[in-house]
């Protein structure tokens, strides 16, 4: 894909960690709630002390599509996008491309793979959990 993420002041450090192949979400220091995407306040207890929490890079396919229409300039081949609900943080979902030729199945267990774009950017993609 040709689109780089436009990060913001909440998210920049998360993307830096992905570039180092760390699989993290935020964990609230007060109530322990895991959250993603990155933002300052815990939505549950409304406090703002937190730390990056490494979690298992696994989840389940919540849904998936095969995109055919060339919405992006220069991308003409169909590709699969998956929505994954994280095993260790079931309130959190992440997106990614599918790293296998065989299409996914809704509910399937999956594992994250880091795809290096360049030194500053990696993306999280998904493949079946073997």
């Amino acid at each position, binding site marked *: *894909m040709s*689109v*780089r*993420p*436009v*990060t*913001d002041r*909440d*998210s920049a450090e998360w*993307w830096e960690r992905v570039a180092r192949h760390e699989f993290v*979400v935020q964990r609230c220091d007060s109530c322990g*709630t*895991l*959250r*993603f*995407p990155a*933002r300052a306040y815990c*939505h*549950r207890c409304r406090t703002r002390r937190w730390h990056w929490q490494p979690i298992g890079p696994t989840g389940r396919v*919540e*849904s*998936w*599509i*095969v*995109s*055919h*229409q*060339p*919405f*992006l*300039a220069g*991308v003409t081949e*169909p*590709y699969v*996008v998956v*929505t994954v*609900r994280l095993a260790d*943080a*079931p*309130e*959190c*979902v*992440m*997106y*990614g*491309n599918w790293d296998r030729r065989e299409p996914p199945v*809704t*509910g399937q267990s999956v594992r994250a793979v880091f795809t290096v774009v360049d030194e500053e950017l990696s*993306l999280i*993609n998904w493949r079946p959990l073997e």
Partner: protein
Amino acid sequence: MRGFRDRTAVAGVGYTRLSKNSGVSTLTLACEAVLAALEDAGLTADDVDGIATHRVGDSAAPSVVGPALGIHRPSWYLDQFGGGSVSHAVVGQAALAVAAGMAETVVCYRAINARSEFRMGGTGRGLPPGPEVQYQAPYGYFAPPQQYAMFARAHMARYGTRPEHFGRLAVTQRANAVKNPRALMRVPITLDDYFDSRWIAEPFRLLDCCLETDGACALVITRADRARDLRRPPVLISAAAWGGGDSFMSGGGADTTVTAAAELAPRLYRQAGVGPAEIDVAEIYDCFTYSVIVQLEDYGFCAKGEGGPYVASGATGPGGELPVNTHGGFLSEGYVHGVNHIAEAVSQLRGDAGDRQVDGAEVALSTAQPGYILPATSALILRKG
């Protein structure tokens, strides 16, 4: 809620021609639709003291449309950011302003060059703003048909909703559009045509998707007692509700097969003093086929998960228990971002819908985008005056 119910009315509707290339600015479209709606009501721009729209940075603002029509000092205006989820909230807020006496005659419009200038699916222009885009766009995931396809697949997996259900909906709405002189697509289609149409984003084919459209539609909102003295039969605003839903940020709901409409519907019906059984006709936001199916469930017309079979039973077609999108909807009339659904409901309740008129229509539901993508929705219940 007695203070709001039936105190305001839609007194006029106006359209421009719907097309794939209007050849004019959104300002021109807005002015044309507003003047047509005022003419329909038997009013002029000199009567207008409120002006409202919704847009996503793609269209002329009230602060431009007002002066362009010589409406220099409106006592109330609204420039609502948002897509289809706020279309009905704009009318609800206009009705509130009128009911509260802040304005007497409000025009609500949506002017859009969604094919020739600003395509909602991107296809060339920059990506939309929003904090979630950075987590999706790098994977080639950002266009509404992709996002809706994702939600539709979850519903299919959970409830057994099938492509045939989507196809039946598209075929039924096209049959309605055949009877609508305004509609962009008036050639009937079959289920085979549906299955033969090309993939956009599986599970969606081309015929699951709304028409990218240039055009405008406007409504005149005023007090119910005043509307009775105007040119057209008034259509009363019995209920208007809007509210939030869940975003993809953690902490929201985890079930994407249920929309914000499920939470909103009981409030809406309570406000109007009716239930789903009293709705004679429904103009339901159909950016994609699945959008209608999930809303039929969440507005209580069938059990959760039964939206597909409900459509396949013929219930939403002409003569069915709940005629839906009698104008053809976004799938076949054209995409005016929700306002043309309200305008069609008004037409049905006035009894001037011609060949597509639902006999004895007295109460109508019209709904907005049900809360996917932008986590909010809105809806109106209208009643023959």
